[in-house]
């Protein structure tokens, strides 16, 4: 019994000991190593047991009460588009703009602005018929300030244009007028109502303007990463390996010789750091844009130009000045793809909207027109990708997925419409019609009859529908956007041209690869005539060309819309008066959109001519004789720059003239001597 007791006692004791050691040991261990934080599971918001029982934030009883509110009276204090602009006046023919005449002598910039509005399709002379009344707030130099105009009407439907930040003390209340101002401060800017303009230098050209300075897509290796603006004007560069504080001069002692350099002009750098505070920043910004130097804006206090439509995140970096270190690190680590995209976007934006006064003014008006149009406004994609919204009329097919010819989306049925212009000869071009109708891609033929003679009653039987449009007397009628044209591709022809079916087929297939360009058979090229100090052009056969003749060329029907609705009227009149000019004009127009040369395809007859005929014979090469230098110079002046680009190549069929059996070749008749 004793031993049993003792045994059990011992057992109990040792069990207790064991427990003590086990539990205590652990506790002691934990006590010994407490400073090391246990890997804590991240503690989040708790999962409430009664989460499902919680009430919803909106009680259903609230709804009816919510709705019983009368229509609101227009808000007094400030304006927005809905309450302060009356779009009913713009119902008829879109945006029509009346400009108040200047009272006294006007400045150069003022004159340019007036000229660019008067040359636009928006301009009207009657204030009653206008939907937007534009008031130029004079710049400080003339020392005069505008007084309240006659049709002021509390500023309703008025746009006050201020090229310099508030030059005049306000002589009148703005009322309901919109303000288009150069670099407005973010605090006074009313988004969706006011328009932010770029800060235009006095010397900004009226038209055309200097093209972007970017010569290549990617930055040159070894080029400075950063250019920094100096307070005194000018720029300074900092290399990629410089220390983290190259902008504030405090660590000036650090960079070795050659690390930083001072420049008057904008240096070749990838990024341009622009501080956001002082007013010069806005002009620096444009300077950088033109140079293809990606602007890095530090906390700008001003609204970026046309921010309503331009997606600046694609072309510039707007960063917080307080996080400079992070910004610099981010710039250094930026991927080549991002740099490439940003650089190109700066150039595109500069060329599309900023390079001239005219572009800036037209962009302003387009922005307002887009607000009026509402759903049929330019989509963001059009504003922010080449060729830009000024080159893409919203009156053309609005909001196709990608409405511009650049895009290769599935348009059309893979067929074309032939437009045959019958001019002086007055003979129905039966042979040409047969040749064109023989093409498997031909969808329809339109004959534009521009002759005093009556229409012939009989036309040849063709496989495709043939329409005759009578009464097109003017040359510019050739490029009217006829509603009967159903395809995207147009083959423009002259009754005197002669083409074979094979040539037409091949040219169309090529055009399908380059739908934004003109694809033609006969070419001419422009040149700078030193002797006369002007442009000239020649149809002589040379190793390069910059224009194709519209007497036989494929292009997108969109260019008819552009030709008719966006070209200044004076230019169309010019073409009507000097018919040889129309080729030049059309080529200028297409080149201004694409910034690329047209495309030439082989033309069998041309080779024959060269072999057998005296060059320049009037019968074989109609319209080519005596190119008129006046014409190209007038057009170049109207465009403000020379958009034509030269090409040194011709696109031939893959097996063209190759030493291989003719049977293998698809376009064998192109090779006939």
């Amino acid at each position, binding site marked *: 019994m004793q031993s049993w007791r003792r045994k059990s006692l011992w057992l109990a*004791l040792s069990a207790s*000991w064991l*427990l*003590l050691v086990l*539990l*205590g040991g652990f*506790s002691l261990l934990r006590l010994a190593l407490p400073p090391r934080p246990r890997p804590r599971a991240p*503690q989040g918001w*708790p999962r*409430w047991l009664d989460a499902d029982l919680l*009430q919803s*934030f909106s009680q259903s009883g609230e*709804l*009816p009460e919510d*709705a*019983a*509110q*009368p*229509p609101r009276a227009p*808000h007094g204090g*400030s304006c*927005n588009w*809905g309450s302060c602009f009356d*779009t009913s006046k713009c119902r008829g023919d879109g945006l029509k703009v009346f400009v108040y005449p200047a009272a006294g002598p006007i400045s150069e910039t003022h004159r340019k602005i007036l000229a660019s509005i008067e040359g636009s399709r928006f301009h009207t002379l009657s204030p009653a018929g206008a939907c937007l009344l534009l008031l130029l707030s004079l710049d400080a130099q003339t020392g005069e300030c505008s007084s309240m105009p006659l049709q002021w009407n509390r500023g309703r439907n008025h746009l006050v244009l201020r090229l310099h930040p508030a030059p005049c003390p306000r002589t009148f209340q703005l009322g309901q007028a919109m303000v288009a101002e150069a670099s407005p401060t*973010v605090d006074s800017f009313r988004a969706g109502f006011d328009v932010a303009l770029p800060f235009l230098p006095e010397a900004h050209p009226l038209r055309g303007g200097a093209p972007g300075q*970017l*010569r*290549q*897509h990617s930055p*040159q*290796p*070894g080029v400075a990463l950063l250019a920094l603006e100096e307070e005194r004007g000018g720029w300074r560069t900092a290399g990629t390996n410089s220390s983290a504080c190259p902008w504030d001069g405090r660590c000036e002692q650090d960079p070795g010789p050659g690390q930083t350099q001072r420049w008057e002009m904008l240096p070749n750098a990838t990024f341009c750091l622009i501080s956001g505070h002082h007013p010069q920043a806005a002009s620096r910004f444009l300077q950088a844009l033109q140079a293809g130097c990606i602007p890095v804006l530090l*906390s700008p206090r001003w609204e970026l130009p046309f921010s309503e439509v331009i997606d600046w995140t694609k072309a510039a970096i*707007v960063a917080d000045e307080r*996080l400079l270190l992070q910004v610099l690190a981010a710039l250094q680590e930026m991927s080549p793809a991002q740099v490439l995209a940003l650089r190109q976007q700066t*150039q*595109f934006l500069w060329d599309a909207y900023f390079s001239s006064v005219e572009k800036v003014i037209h962009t302003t008006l387009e922005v307002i027109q887009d607000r009026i149009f*509402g*759903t*049929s406004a330019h989509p*963001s994609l059009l504003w922010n990708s080449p060729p830009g919204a000024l080159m893409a009329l919203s009156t053309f097919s609005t*909001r196709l997925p990608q409405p511009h010819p650049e895009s290769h989306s599935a348009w059309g049925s893979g067929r074309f419409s032939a437009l045959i212009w019958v001019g002086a000869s007055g003979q129905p071009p039966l042979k040409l019609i047969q040749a064109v109708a023989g093409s498997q891609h031909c969808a329809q033929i339109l004959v534009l009859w521009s002759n005093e003679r009556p229409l012939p009653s009989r036309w040849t039987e063709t496989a495709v529908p043939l329409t005759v449009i009578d009464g097109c007397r003017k040359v510019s009628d050739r490029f009217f956007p006829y509603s009967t044209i159903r395809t995207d591709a147009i083959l423009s022809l002259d009754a005197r041209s002669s083409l074979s079916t094979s040539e037409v087929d*091949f040219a169309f*297939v090529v055009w399908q*690869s380059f739908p934004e360009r003109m694809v033609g058979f006969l070419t001419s090229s422009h040149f700078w005539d030193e002797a006369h100090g002007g442009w000239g052009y020649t149809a002589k056969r*040379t*190793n390069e060309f910059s224009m194709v003749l519209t007497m036989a060329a494929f292009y997108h029907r969109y260019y008819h819309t552009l030709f008719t609705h966006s070209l200044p009227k004076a230019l169309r009149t010019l073409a009507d008066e000097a018919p040889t000019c129309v080729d030049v004009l059309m080529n200028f127009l297409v080149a201004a959109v694409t910034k*690329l040369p047209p495309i*030439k395809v082989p033309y069998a007859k041309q080779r024959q001519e*060269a*072999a057998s005929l005296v060059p320049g014979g009037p019968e074989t090469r109609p319209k080519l004789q005596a190119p008129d230098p006046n014409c190209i110079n007038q057009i170049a002046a109207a465009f403000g720059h020379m958009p034509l680009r030269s090409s*040194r*190549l*011709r*696109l*031939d069929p*893959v097996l063209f*003239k190759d030493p*291989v059996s003719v049977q*293998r070749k698809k376009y064998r008749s192109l090779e006939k001597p």
Partner: protein
Amino acid sequence: CEEEAVCVIMCASVKYNIRGPALIPRMKTKHRIYYITLFSIVLLGLIATGMFQFWPHSIESSNDWNVEKRSVRDVPVVRLPADSPIPERGDLSCRMHTCFDVYRCGFNPKNKIKVYIYALKKYVDDFGVPVSNTISREYNELLTAISDSDYYTDDINRACLFVPSIDVLNQNTLRIKETAQALAQLARWDRGTNHLLFNMLPGGPPDYNTALDVPRDRALLAGGGFSTWTYRQGYDVSIPVYSPLSAEVDLPEKGPGPRRYFLLSSQVGLHPEYREDIEALQVKHGESVLVLDKCTNLSEGVLSVRKRCHKHQVFDYPQVLQEATFCVVLRGARLGQAVLSDVLQAGCVPVVIADSYILPFSEVLDWKRASVVVPEEKMSDVYSILQSIPQRQIEEMQRQARWFWEAYFQSIKAIALATLQIINDRIYPYAAISYEEWNDPPAVKWGSVSNPLFLPLIPPQSQGFTAIVLTYDRVESLFRVITEVSKVPSLSKLLVVWNNQNKNPPEDSLWPKIRVPLKVVRTAENKLSNRFFPYDEIETEAVLAIDDDIIMLTSDELQFGYEVWREFPDRLVGYPGRLHLWDHEMNKWKYESEWTNEVSMVLTGAAFYHKYFNYLYTYKMPGDIKNWVDAHMNCEDIAMNFLVANVTGKAVIKVTPRKKFKCPECTAIDGLSLDQTHMVERSECINKFASVFGTMPLKVVEHRADPVLYKDDFPEKLKSFPNIGSL
């Protein structure tokens, strides 16, 4: 339960102790003392252990009470004295650079803001009356979503944004002054700097302000129903009013296209004036307009929220929305309406009639693509405005509307994360999400090509090109190529990639003397992809890739090729062309090198291209293509053709007539002839690459580029490139 176990043991040992005296007296005193000491030690030890087990735990568990499931009713109560401070009213001039302390976001390495959520408390006034409902279901979901996201941090010191757990989603459920006091006593309130409040139903009767009335000083407000007067552009975030139907009702996506009703108004309790206007439309346009209202005669048990009536006809809501092309979203007392979410969910294009309303997420979302905004005074013209929209555009808007709902309206989580992303993008603009990523539906994102070299630009001729010759050990042939290429006027540098690790390149003195710099790069491994590496030595944009046995190209041909590249800098411009064909018998792609009328690839044994494609090939090649090419020692040129065509969406340009190339395809594997197996392998490559790319990016064209006067009857000496096509 660990604690419980300890307790059982302790209690047991205590019992033992009580029984002890009965047992111990029989022992000897010496033993007794011994036993008693032993027992007391054990007892003490056990007690100490027990205490130890208990104490720290109870401390910790109060710390991490939130990892366990608790009831909302048990949260700590905070009493707010009546005179505790009230924040100032919202500052209308606040911008990110004035009111936001960005330094707090300075130490986030991944360009991601860190968000801290305050612990939930219950606020009562001096009399113990609660300030508001503790938390609503939606706000709980919202905080859960933030807490589960990458933005969340539980370290208040590292946080850049603070989200109070005080629920202000609906202003009507809270007492304004006391809520403001509650905000002001938050640990890091500091005038509301970097605090984010979520509010969906602002204002209250009678005037219904469009922003939360709770004084909040500098705090950011994510509000549903901002107007232009209250919205601080670039500071506040406009968010949707969440509709509970989003979760309750499953509306499968309905394809775009014409629907039964052209215009539908489904809102109940419209103001009579508006209802009159809309009913006038119905009278005028008949069947195509449907105006619904509350049902008055529903039987018991039917949820009135889910029914709408027109006269005596009953419709299911929101299902009826799918029957309409356009749906009216009219302002009530508040500008933001939950019906907008229902309408988007149904793929119905919202017609928003609410002057000055800031649409949800308008900072990043392009509402023009998904909605029609009509001024209130134009309500009678709505029908004609809508009719002027082309059908194609309507269909796109329908798709877009549904996509907006799926991405940004669907759940509280979607709303919360979009809000944080917007704020994040403001702070780290260089890492911001692009317009396309916000707005393009996934189908468009995948389907669209954005050419990396989109700017139309003809690079200046003066820049010239860099020739890169890949070589292994054919020194003699290599030297001939170098001599030939050096005659090309626009060559600016020659780079030899020496791919042989077993042999040193010839000594400097043995290399041909040429007029441009010649550099030899030695590689670490004999890989074909070395040819496409973006070497620092490449200073020009144009690169001519050329094999060490291509000696048949004349200087005119190479110079002309460069000129063609300048006109097409975003394309591969090469000499021998190849074609891919669909083999109908085998049902797969086939490689073709015969004399064909078409071209879809050029061989990179002699091709010009932009050096950017070297970067893409080396770092951005999809899938395992790069390794596959190196492993098979073949098809690097096909891979390059795929890459360029895929990224630009454009075809190659073949230049100049066909020549007899000495087996240009067998560059790497010497001696392998142009035999069947080789062709089979290249066909395999095409099939492999097409499956990796998920599509066939190659474009077939029927043209090649020749000089303008090629083969024309024209004096040869006047031609720029006379020596072209000679064999």
